[in-house]
């Protein structure tokens, strides 16, 4: 219904546009759906993408490493990936680059059952059983986290599982003490789906460890092409608009998101959108357009990862990112 209304509005606003066919644009997410993705659905449902002449197909992913590999081999030229994970890929030769950083602080957290809360402080980390999903965003930052605390990965009993749901099952069944996930994702959602009360502690709160987080990344050879650059600009502009709209209209964003992810209740979806909106900028990017990242934050992320997580530092930080395809507020289509 909403789409139809959106399309009708578009038809009225731009009759010349009427016959123009929308260009298909696949966009792969980092993970199965959670509240952080709401702004992309907002951009789609409010017709922001259509206004840019795009028909965006939002696809789910199964972890940042895996998705970054899909971008590197051009299966999905544009995708949503954890920045720290992407940095590791870039230093290993992946031809990818961040074109917009939507989460600029790390939401990574230990998520545990409230009735068996562990680890809640640094002294409880050693020997804890920590579940991660192989190929997701957690390993890069967790390695840095342990390094900063003077520990090694081997100091915890790390349990790797193959798919997103399994690490949640492992914690619920008490086979693991905690999982590494996003404080605004797994915690609230698991509580909702199972009724088990969950708790969480952010790595940032424990040891001040943070990096740039979720980013829209693109394949380098794909983004060389002038036609693709134009597509990318339009996609980013509409996405920025979706993020801005979601920032201002949290409840409506949660509602729109729930149409794509009906398992969420309004309460949980809103909680996740709210949590997401607290970490979309750093001190350095206050007042900048959404998605715009500062080279100083890239430097900090690289310093952390190279000091503690064996990342091979790059002298030119511009290999990681570019702001050139982003637009200034209010992110409206160019006429």
């Amino acid at each position, binding site marked *: 219904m909403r789409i139809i209304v959106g399309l009708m509005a578009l038809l009225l606003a731009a009759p010349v546009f009427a016959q123009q066919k929308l260009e298909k644009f696949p966009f792969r997410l980092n993970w199965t759906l959670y509240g952080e993705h709401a702004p992309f659905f907002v951009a789609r449902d409010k017709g922001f993408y259509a206004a840019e002449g795009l028909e965006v197909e939002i696809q789910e992913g199964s*972890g940042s*490493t895996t998705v970054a*590999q899909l971008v*590197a081999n051009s299966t999905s030229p544009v995708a949503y990936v954890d920045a720290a994970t992407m940095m*590791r*890929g870039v230093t*290993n*030769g*992946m*031809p990818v680059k961040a074109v917009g950083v939507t989460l600029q602080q790390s939401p990574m957290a230990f998520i545990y059952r409230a009735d068996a809360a562990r680890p809640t402080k640094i002294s409880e980390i050693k020997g804890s*059983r920590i579940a991660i999903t*192989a*190929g*997701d965003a957690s*390993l*890069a930052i967790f*390695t840095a986290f342990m390094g900063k605390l003077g520990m090694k990965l081997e100091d915890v*009993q*790390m*349990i*790797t*599982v*193959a*798919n997103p749901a*399994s690490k949640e*099952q*492992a914690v619920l*069944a008490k*086979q*693991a003490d905690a999982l590494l996930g996003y404080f605004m994702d797994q915690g609230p959602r698991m509580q909702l789906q199972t009724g088990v009360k969950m708790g969480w502690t952010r790595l940032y709160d424990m040891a001040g460890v943070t990096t740039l987080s979720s980013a829209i990344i693109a394949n380098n050879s794909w983004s060389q092409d002038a036609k693709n650059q134009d597509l990318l600009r339009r996609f980013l502009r509409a996405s920025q608009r979706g993020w801005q709209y979601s920032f201002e209209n949290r409840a409506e964003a949660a509602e729109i998101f729930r149409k794509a992810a009906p398992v969420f209740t309004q309460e949980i979806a809103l909680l996740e959108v709210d949590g997401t909106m607290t970490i979309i900028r750093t001190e350095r990017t206050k007042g900048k357009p959404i998605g715009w990242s500062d080279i100083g934050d890239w430097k900090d992320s690289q310093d952390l990862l190279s000091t503690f997580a064996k990342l091979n530092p790059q002298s030119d930080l511009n290999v990681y990112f570019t702001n050139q395809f982003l637009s200034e507020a209010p992110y409206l289509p160019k006429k």
Partner: protein
Amino acid sequence: MPVVNKLAPYAGILVFLAVWEAGVRVFKVPTYLMPPPSAVAVVFVNEFPKLLFHGWVTTYEMLLGYAMAVAIAIPLAIAITASQRFDRFVTPQMLFFQVVPKVAIAPLFLVWFGVGTTPKVLVAFLISFFPIVIDASVGLRSMSSEMRDLARSMGASRWQVFAQFRLPTSLPYLFSGLKVAATLAVAGAVVGEFVGADKGLGYLLLVTNSNMETALMFATIVALTIIGLVFFYAVEFLEALLIPWHVTHRVREDAGTM
């Protein structure tokens, strides 16, 4: 000439490695895609203690699963061939469990048995069980009726017919099943570890892939290959000890003297 023949497989491997090394260097293949074999070798040596630890875990799971499969499959095959009724009773279910993809049920094992050794052993067991039962049953049925009549006419008891005629004739078939199962058992243990684990080579594969430590990942694959090969040849060695009379061994000797 014989020396050249003996060296041929090694030369083949060396050429393969040289082409790989040269290819990676010439075409500047990024490390996240494919490391040069020299880098893999260096990592293999440097990380050997780690590989040994995780390799032992996987070997242990594999051997346990395989031993369970042998211990259950062979008596089952004997029962199936001894009684048609039992055959009809048990075979359809066995087939059903074989057809269900192990990869699909492995995540259930994680929920039921946790991340310990049990689910890996079970996957290794399930995956190596079927070929042993099938080949052992075929083997046990392979004795000709003339042979049985001959044994009976010489006054052999039912037990003697089984132990001295039926069982030995079945061995070549049984061993081909055991060899197939040996290669599958390694895969089974790794599949089990993929689903959820805190140690083992399958775990190491996932972590290294996740961290884009491609060289260590390839070293892990090499370690897995070595384990698989050693196990396969161990079973084949056992076969040569137990049935040196069998046609496959005779043929090879003939070929050697020609």
